[in-house]
């Protein structure tokens, strides 16, 4: 007598029920939203993607032209301190992205680019913009100790958040610099900004 269980186990064909359950499995799954940006950053680092101009330069050629003009005008007015308005000093804004930071929506990936580019245009018109860069999403933390130098690649897990970029601004005073920093759209998206005055060694 054929043991039914043994027969079923040795049957090479799927049963109707097995076929039904397999057919019911979803063939598509929504990937985590952040995977798209991470993949793009990986591709860009590998040189496989033609990246757009730096996001704070703005979206259009017109904006880029205005900024180039304004930057040249500002540099042309400098004294012995490169890029600094005569009556003020330079400050740096470090932009932090913590867990709650609101990234650009998938259907409008350039939203932050436009926002930050607009801010650059506005402060550039008043001579306050001095430069900036976006930072890659990877890095290292190096710590020196009696045991030597430790290199930690868990930069993105820092509890204070990740520095995603920085701006250099010219300002007449600390209050002026604070006002400029407070106007940055990064703060409206749940980001954090550390503002520091530059204290030139010279």
């Amino acid at each position, binding site marked *: 007598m054929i043991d039914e269980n043994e027969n079923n*186990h040795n049957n090479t064909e799927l049963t109707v029920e097995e076929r039904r*359950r397999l057919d019911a*499995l979803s*063939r*598509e799954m929504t990937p985590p939203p952040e*995977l798209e940006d991470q993949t793009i950053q990986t591709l860009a680092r590998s040189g496989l993607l033609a990246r757009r101009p730096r996001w704070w330069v703005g979206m259009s050629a017109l904006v880029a032209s205005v900024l180039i003009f304004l930057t040249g005008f500002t540099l042309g007015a400098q004294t012995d301190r490169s890029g600094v308005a005569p009556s003020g000093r330079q400050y740096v804004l470090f932009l932090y992205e913590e867990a709650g930071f609101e990234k650009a929506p998938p259907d409008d990936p350039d939203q932050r680019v436009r926002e930050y580019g607009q801010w650059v245009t506005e402060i550039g018109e008043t001579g306050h913009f001095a430069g900036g860069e976006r930072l890659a999403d990877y890095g290292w933390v190096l710590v020196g100790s009696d045991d030597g130098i430790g290199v930690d690649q868990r930069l993105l897990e820092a509890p204070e958040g990740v520095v995603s970029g920085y701006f250099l601004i010219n300002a007449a005073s600390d209050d002026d610099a604070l006002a400029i920093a407070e106007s940055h759209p990064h703060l409206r998206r749940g980001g954090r900004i550390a503002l520091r005055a530059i204290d030139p060694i010279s």
Partner: protein
Amino acid sequence: MDPASQDDRSLVDAFLKTRSERAFRTLYRRCTPRLYAFARRLAGDEQETDELVQETWVRAVDSLPRFRWQSTLRTWLIGIAINCYRQSTRRRGNLQLVDSDDPLMRADDPVLHATAEHVDLERAIAKLPNGYRQVLLLHDVEGYTHQEIGDLLGIDPGTSKSQLFRARRAMRAMLTEPPTRKAGGENGL
């Protein structure tokens, strides 16, 4: 060429012309849901799946200029994913999947939110040995023939058939075995 493949080709051509981020995002959004589902079942672990999908796209974008459309784009991407997965398992010493009861799985994990029946099946598939799981996914889930599976995995169609038989038997055994009790009673004490 069927309309879906024509759409894929148009998107690929548009991307290769500019290599723009925007063109890539369009291609990514079209292809990744299907790729992600396959990778998720192949890798089992969420973090590994993300890494697998990223690595697949990096290799795919690098090789896209040489892709001759002798298969569909989806098949080609799956083939790359399989190769990436095999290399990563070799690097890790061929470790088995993370236990699908892993508490680190996301609360919104698509596997967990399926019906209990689907979860049982997903877990059974996840527990299969790598070789069995690949053949079963490719044949019974993705619908490839043994000839196509042979091309994807670099094995004979006959080997694919025998692996599939063993995979089904193993899956069947897991689906019909009674749930195990925790040792020591309800609180595990």
